[in-house]
């Protein structure tokens, strides 16, 4: 099979490099960073940290070079989904496209350009160390399932999951992939922007009882929006939040959104709190606090141009 990873940043690289180890999978990477693309084509793609991988694959910044693919795995930041899938859709006319991105709303964007879409949520994480070289920080599972309005056939979802798992990225094919996605988005939307607005690490956010209650109010709104869609979460986001606050887990972790804000990079808040607010409005659930947080983080972004 032929797979194209669309957006070969840290998470995209984890999928691309691991899949490229398999003899029966041909991997392409589409990415707009010329030095990264050049390094991958010249020296291969290296992962180090949680796993050591050195894989050969084809990378390109020119979507016209992409051959027809059986699968796409979209791993861009959410604000780049539209441009990335618009450019690469021609390679997936006979294939299926999965998203492993943060937030909600990416499936809808992808479905405007391709016919068979796979909803996905992934927990592995890393960061780019240098062009062609990615630090693999955390291993973890991925869950994929057909995107209901424009579903990929379930056999295809299983075929992709099997290949990813065999390549070293444990992936589950499920009929309804919404519960893990909403669990993750509620976790992220209730904690990341609080870190971004206050400058506090995850553990310090949880240390302050008053602030922790604001986190809980955000969680409550997210749970209500999930419930209104008939989504049954597999566990309570509150437990995940408390678990992550443990000193041996992620007490001192600066949320990616805080890192974005410190580097003055656009955040993914539109797809986290903005996504919860949008789905809430569609299902008649009030989300005043998520809306407030969304507006505040957009305000932070606007302040950089003032």
């Amino acid at each position, binding site marked *: 099979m032929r797979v194209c990873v669309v957006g070969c940043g840290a998470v995209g690289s984890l999928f691309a490099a691991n899949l490229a180890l398999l003899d029966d999978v041909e991997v392409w990477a589409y990415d707009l960073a010329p030095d990264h693309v050049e390094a991958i084509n010249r020296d291969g793609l290296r992962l180090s940290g949680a796993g050591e991988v050195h894989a050969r694959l084809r990378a390109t910044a020119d979507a016209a070079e992409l051959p027809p693919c059986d699968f796409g795995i979209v791993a861009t930041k959410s604000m780049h989904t539209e441009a990335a899938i618009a450019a690469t859709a021609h390679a997936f006319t006979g294939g299926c496209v999965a998203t492993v991105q943060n937030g909600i709303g990416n499936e809808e964007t992808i479905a405007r350009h391709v016919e068979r879409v796979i909803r996905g949520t992934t927990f592995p994480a890393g960061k780019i160390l240098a062009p062609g070289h990615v630090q693999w920080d955390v291993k973890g599972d991925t869950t994929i399932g057909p995107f209901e309005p424009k579903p990929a056939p379930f056999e295809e979802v299983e075929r992709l999951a099997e290949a990813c798992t065999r390549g070293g990225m444990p992936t589950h094919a499920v009929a309804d992939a919404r519960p893990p996605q909403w669990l993750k988005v509620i976790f992220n939307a209730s904690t990341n922007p609080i870190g971004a607005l206050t400058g506090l690490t995850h553990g310090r956010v949880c240390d302050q009882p008053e602030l922790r209650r*604001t986190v809980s109010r955000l969680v409550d709104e997210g749970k209500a929006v999930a419930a209104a869609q008939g989504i049954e979460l597999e566990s309570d986001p509150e437990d995940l939040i408390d678990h992550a606050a443990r000193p041996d887990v992620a007490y001192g972790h600066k949320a990616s959104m805080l890192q974005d804000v410190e580097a003055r990079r656009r955040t993914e808040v539109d797809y986290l709190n*903005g996504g919860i607010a949008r789905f809430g409005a569609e299902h008649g659930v009030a989300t005043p606090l998520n809306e407030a947080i*969304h507006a*505040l983080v957009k*305000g932070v972004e606007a302040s950089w141009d003032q």
Partner: protein
Amino acid sequence: MTERVCVVGAGSIGSLLAAHLSRVADVSVLVRREEHAQALNEQGLRVSGRAEFTAEVRAAVDPDELPEPQLAILACKGPEVAAVADRISGRWSGATVMTVQNGLGAEATVAERGAWPILAALTFMSGTRHSDTHVEYVLDTATWIGPGRGTTAADARAVAELILAGGLKAEAYEDIAPVRWSKLIFNATVNGVAALTGLRHDFHFAAEERPSDLGHLVRGLIDEGKAVAAAAGLVLHEDPWQMNVLATQRGHAHYPSMLEDVDARRPTELETINGALVREAERLGVSVPLQRAIYRLVKAKEASYL
């Protein structure tokens, strides 16, 4: 006729009041740092901007080195009122004490520390302090004065006239509570949002076109504040939303003091402004989830650097 005035605290507001009043009264300045007092005694106090002159003032760090005033103006920030009132406690029994702090609580704090008659003022003028001996007069909006414990509207008028004679704008009111509350709601909202986003007060605060525009949040915060004022039985002097809209149309993006404090990693006036509003809401049984979130977030932001 008031002949001897002591201005306690020489930040931008204190410096503007001291310099202008020295044209019509014998003005002394009580400051915290010895070198500040020395500089004022040697160089005088220079005003630039809307007025250009240098005033002669008598400054000291020890109240006993200053002549007993008939009017003492506490021009420090809200959180410093208690410490400043402690310094003059037991002294100046013939003086009237005037507070000029935003938020709630300054009058009560002073009243607990002495039997002085009290005037309650609010100032809308603004200045930029360039050094210990130089203040720029920026916004020439008025200082509003009303009676407090043991004073009458006639006392407020007398001080307003003195300030007017000195070249600043001032107005006396029978009851300053409606003005105080308009300003409290305005400041809690605009300063809180500015401190969290880094935005100076500009059009973003009144924008309501897209769902994520900040104007929706600002309106929601102001509506909560109005509900608290209504529950307290107050009729507001001005609609804080109109104050917000007008201020964003002035063409100059004001740098709110709470943002200034956060940028300089100083303690903010959060407790006497947002904290006071939230506690008053609690006392009156009014639900203010958005104001509470802003209060907790700014508190946490302070905790990230204090």
